[in-house]
């Protein structure tokens, strides 16, 4: 039989109607490969239907369930009970909302606000480079793509932005910066100037202190700091870069 754990979750709560903040403890027995989203659901079903928390796909592909557990931003759908016990060396966990946008209620933050920065970074192709004659699409070699492919895996869970030691007020944030860097490295994008202007602006990448906290916490294991470092060096590959 699988081992069970006696788990305590100390969850930071916030009620927008009364603007009250408090920490509420929930105790439960949990199987070893239950995930933290399963625990939240059990709290709703068995103890307290009023606890609000975010999730959608629940398999690490949408980035809706980001929370801080014992100070570390992560996806609650990917945190198995036995891994949490091992990583943090305890069966008691403090769970808080991530700090990248105002809290709506309990663990739910206003991600729409956080996304404003990603929109500002213009994640789309601003101006498409012209197609080579008689081609219906760009022939990109796997080697060209490999330079930036990892960055395209970003799901905007904002864990990196939460962990970033630069002030959220001044820096556009690691994931938003990376959204623009991807397009600078994408040979299909012709508009480089506008992107460089943003990246080297007041809220741009020189706000980054190179702590690499972003890479450390990224649930998708993207080396976010690597891409910001490339941008600091102006090394975007292709005709505009040095490589």
């Amino acid at each position, binding site marked *: 039989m699988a081992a069970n754990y006696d788990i305590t979750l100390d969850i930071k709560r916030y009620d927008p109607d009364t603007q009250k903040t408090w920490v509420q403890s929930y105790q439960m027995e949990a199987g070893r490969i239950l995930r933290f989203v399963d625990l939240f659901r059990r709290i709703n079903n068995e103890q307290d*239907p009023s606890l609000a928390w975010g999730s959608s796909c629940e398999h690490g592909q949408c980035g*809706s369930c980001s929370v801080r557990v014992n100070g570390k931003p992560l996806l609650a759908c990917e945190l198995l009970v036995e891994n949490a016990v091992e990583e943090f060396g305890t069966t008691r966990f403090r769970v808080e909302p991530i700090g990248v946008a105002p809290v709506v209620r309990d663990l739910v933050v206003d991600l729409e606000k956080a996304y404003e920065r990603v929109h500002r970074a213009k994640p789309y192709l601003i101006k498409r480079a012209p197609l080579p004659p008689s081609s219906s699409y760009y022939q990109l070699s796997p080697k060209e793509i490999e330079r930036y492919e990892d960055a395209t895996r970003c799901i*905007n869970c904002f864990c990196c932005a939460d962990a970033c030691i630069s002030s959220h007020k001044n820096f556009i944030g690691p994931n938003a910066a990376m959204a623009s860097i991807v397009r600078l490295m994408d040979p299909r994008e012709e508009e480089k100037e506008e992107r460089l202007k943003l990246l080297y602006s007041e809220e741009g990448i020189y706000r980054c202190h190179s702590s690499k906290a972003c890479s450390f916490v990224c649930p998708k294991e993207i080396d976010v700091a690597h891409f910001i470092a490339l941008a600091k060096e102006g090394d975007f590959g292709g005709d505009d870069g040095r490589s």
Partner: protein
Amino acid sequence: MAHMLKVNTTLSCDVLVIGAGGAGLRCAAEILEQRPGAKVLAVTKVAHPQKSHTSTAQGGVCAVDPSDPHDNPAYHMFDTWKGSDCSADQNVVKKIVETGWDQLMWLENRGMHFTRLEGGELGKRTFGGHTSDFGKVSSFRAVFDADRTGKSMMDTCWQEAVKGGITFISQSVLTELLFSDGRCIGAILFSEKEGEFIGVTAKATVLATGGCGQVFRITTNCRDNTGDALAVILRAGFPVMDAEAVQFHPTGIVGPGILASEALRSEGGILRNRDLEPFMERYAPKMKELAPRDIVSRAMESEIRNGKGVLNPDHNIEHVWIDLRELPDYVHDVKLKEISGFFKTFANIDPKKELCPVRSSNHYHMGGIPTTEFGEVQQSAEQIVPGLFAVGECASASFHGFNRLGTNSLLELFTMGKFVGERVCDYIQDGALTELPKDAGEATFTQFSRYLEASGTGNIGVIREEMRNLMTAKVGIFRKGDEMAEAMESLKELRERAEAVALAGRTTRMNQELRQRWELDNLLELAMIITRGAYERKESRGGHYRDDYTERSEEFDYHTLAYMTEFGSVRLGKRSIDMSIFEAGGEHSEYFKMIPRKY
């Protein structure tokens, strides 16, 4: 209490898109490209459109490459027709297949990322049921972005919509459609975040709210796929088509119910029972692991029913194994990195060394809101609802009939998204905005007041789980008349229990329990028409399999239309299956008659 609920905000727009996944936003992007400056509002239930369920599609998207000498649109049409168990509509199949590659290029040229070959061309892989030369050999028809094709497409769609100047309304749901003289003129939305009701008048309204997989206990669908627009359509007195046509994907990961893509099998993964026998050889000698999804799912369930399953003690779920140990490290580490990693992340299993537990899981709803080939919502087989459109998984045109082929869903999203966008542009040309009707929202306020005022006992989440268990057990992969009759009675009891539940909090602002209460009503309504449709269809066809009627029957060569304005009281109608390719009688038309579905 009722008097406290009101329309807090009124908005107007050219087009209201409800649901901002791949289909909704491809449609929106088309409108914004054709009509720069059009005011398009897109409503999403999740925190941002990028969080939509389209992002979880993994393995690929198919389209016939005109430069491929081995492929031909007729082969793809045949595969789709045969795969649908002869119940897709051929006009829709033809239309989608013929535009597939061009629309794929639309995505590529707007920055979607695809995996490439050394020479820079798009890489391709095979998928179950896709063949060349009318079933003779497997076809390489699916392009992909590693194992995150849906995310890549979703990203491109929301990015293009943002570029076009769309306005998003996040964490909000559709509660009611508004009509004037039989024409849809907008909707009432509930903004969960603000706890407020928004009245929107629009020249055209597009429904794109996705699937309803949460009806079932074992599902690959996200927490938000609760069939919301389908329930709203039923309440408006309109039908849902082929509700009983539900697809079960063979390989959900036991526990979290996460999808492990078919790509695992196309790369060489083998299904084994408790004796480690590669049992697919017995069920589909030719295609084995790559037989269509319903056949593989039933084979797995049969093994489990015959005592050849394995019990997982943690989740108390029986399963079979998928053996990935022989796959090269390159496949594990690069090609299918994310899927292979799922087993490690969600079950602490190393797929290079250990067998992985999988169980057939609810995956896709072929049925949905009936539409024409242009996405116009139908109120009967003959009549449309002016001003109202539907696209994506919530709609049924029908491209998939009773069984969908892998990679055909993403294809449908962006091709139909474009077609619907085009039709909407035509429709709004002469359209005028109507004032918000005086009684707008009354039905919503009555409904929500009922939830807020209930004073009995019970828990919404627990009732939802009971319903899901019931549906997986009795209306799942194997269905039987008497069991479904029992299920319909149980659903009525669950609904009565739901009515009693007093909510823990009476606030409307970010009250998840309130939203879940509303979702539960939607789910129960969907569960009821799925069950009733399946009960009446006394045959087996595609994903709908009856233990007591194991063969397809020509008596049921039609689409089911189910109406239900009062819970449990279902009225049924029919829509015929379009066979225009067959009837046109051209080259290859003989492949498009009612053919047996054997692989």
